[in-house]
């Protein structure tokens, strides 16, 4: 009869008070047990929490370090890519470790020097384009004069206009275009490459793009502003072209 289910309502009615009582008792017991055991649990949880927090902090610092390494690796891969696509030159990769003290001068210091085969006047590039040239060096460090320095002048050619000119730096770190003959049609955005004239830099290295042009009356040359292709404020790794010997024309200058 029990199997057939005829007694189920009777069983339910008779068992339900016991279940309720059991449930009440169990809850009270758990509450009682928690009351006495919770300080121990709290202490365990607290120490566990502390341990996990320490672990999280350690992992976070590891993540930051790995992200730094990844960013550095990205830069190095890009430099390597550039070196592979420009096999005419030999390169030495270097890290920028310092910047010029005076705000009027635009120089950076790299961690490679004469021990690594670097010499005075060697051109310095990144995967984007021209950075500058070595101005001074010791055995394990070198100072690079950036093309944005006020004393820097780079002979260039405009790719579309097919004319030559000069890119000069300034005390504020901006670069400008000069010595472009009047009458030359220069398009904004025209690509500026090194011309190789003067023997200071190898030809066909990307310098920047024409931003604006100015042509005044009664002057022989047009001037303009240039958007450099290299972001000099975030420069962190560079390539020094070691198989290019800069020509020193200073004895020929009157």
């Amino acid at each position, binding site marked *: 009869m029990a199997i057939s289910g005829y007694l189920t309502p009777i069983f339910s009615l008779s068992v339900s008070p016991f279940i309720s009582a059991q449930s009440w008792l169990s809850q009270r017991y758990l509450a009682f047990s928690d009351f006495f055991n919770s300080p121990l649990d709290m202490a365990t949880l607290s120490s566990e929490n502390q341990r996990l927090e320490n672990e999280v902090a350690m992992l976070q610092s590891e993540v930051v370090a790995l992200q730094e390494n990844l960013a550095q690796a990205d830069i190095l891969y890009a430099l390597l890519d550039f070196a592979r696509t420009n096999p005419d030159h030999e390169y030495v990769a270097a890290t920028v470790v310092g910047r010029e003290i005076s*705000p009027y001068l635009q*120089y950076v210091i790299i961690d490679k020097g004469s021990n690594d085969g670097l010499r005075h006047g060697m051109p310095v590039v990144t995967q984007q384009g021209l950075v500058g040239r070595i101005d001074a060096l010791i055995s394990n460090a070198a100072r690079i004069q950036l093309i944005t320095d006020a004393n820097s002048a780079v002979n260039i050619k405009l790719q579309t206009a097919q004319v030559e000119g000069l890119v000069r730096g300034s005390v504020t770190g901006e670069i400008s275009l000069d010595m472009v003959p009047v009458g030359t049609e220069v398009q904004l955005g025209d690509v500026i490459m090194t011309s190789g004239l003067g023997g200071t830099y190898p030809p066909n290295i990307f310098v920047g793009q024409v931003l604006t042009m100015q042509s005044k009356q009664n002057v022989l040359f047009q001037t303009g502003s240039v958007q450099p292709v290299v972001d000099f404020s975030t420069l962190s790794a560079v390539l020094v072209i070691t198989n290019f010997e800069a020509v020193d024309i200073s004895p020929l200058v009157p």
Partner: protein
Amino acid sequence: MLSYFLGFTGFLVTLMLQLSIFSQWKILSGSADIVLLYVIAWSLYDRTKWMWIMLLIMMGMVSLVSALPFFIPAIVYLLVFWASRLVQSRVWQTPLLAMFVLTFGATIVQILLTVGFLFVQRADINFSQALIEVALPALLLNMLLAIPIHALVRELAFIAFPQGVEE
């Protein structure tokens, strides 16, 4: 000997911080020169006889890392040394005021010498741009940083010259 060691160590730390961090902190195109600020602050508190030798070494190191010609830091640092001795004997009760006065004067002299040097080298200089975008922001940053640098060097000087630091 401790004073020389602390003074020189402080200078090296300052130089490294300048090259790696403070040269990149810019307002417009001007940046602070905490090496100059350190030299000024240390000169104000220095009580040693041979400070000028340490100054020569500092000049040499700055000339080594900077593209500035040797005579610019030499003139500025020697002027700072001379002026700090002068100031110590007259307004020694107010070293912070002396720090401000010397920072202002030394920054102006350094700017004038640098611009003069670039002008002689026939560099492409727009004087109004050089004043507004470089000189004034650099002066402002130097004046702002003069306070913390002075406070740090003062603490260092208390260790280096326990008897002789006036405040």
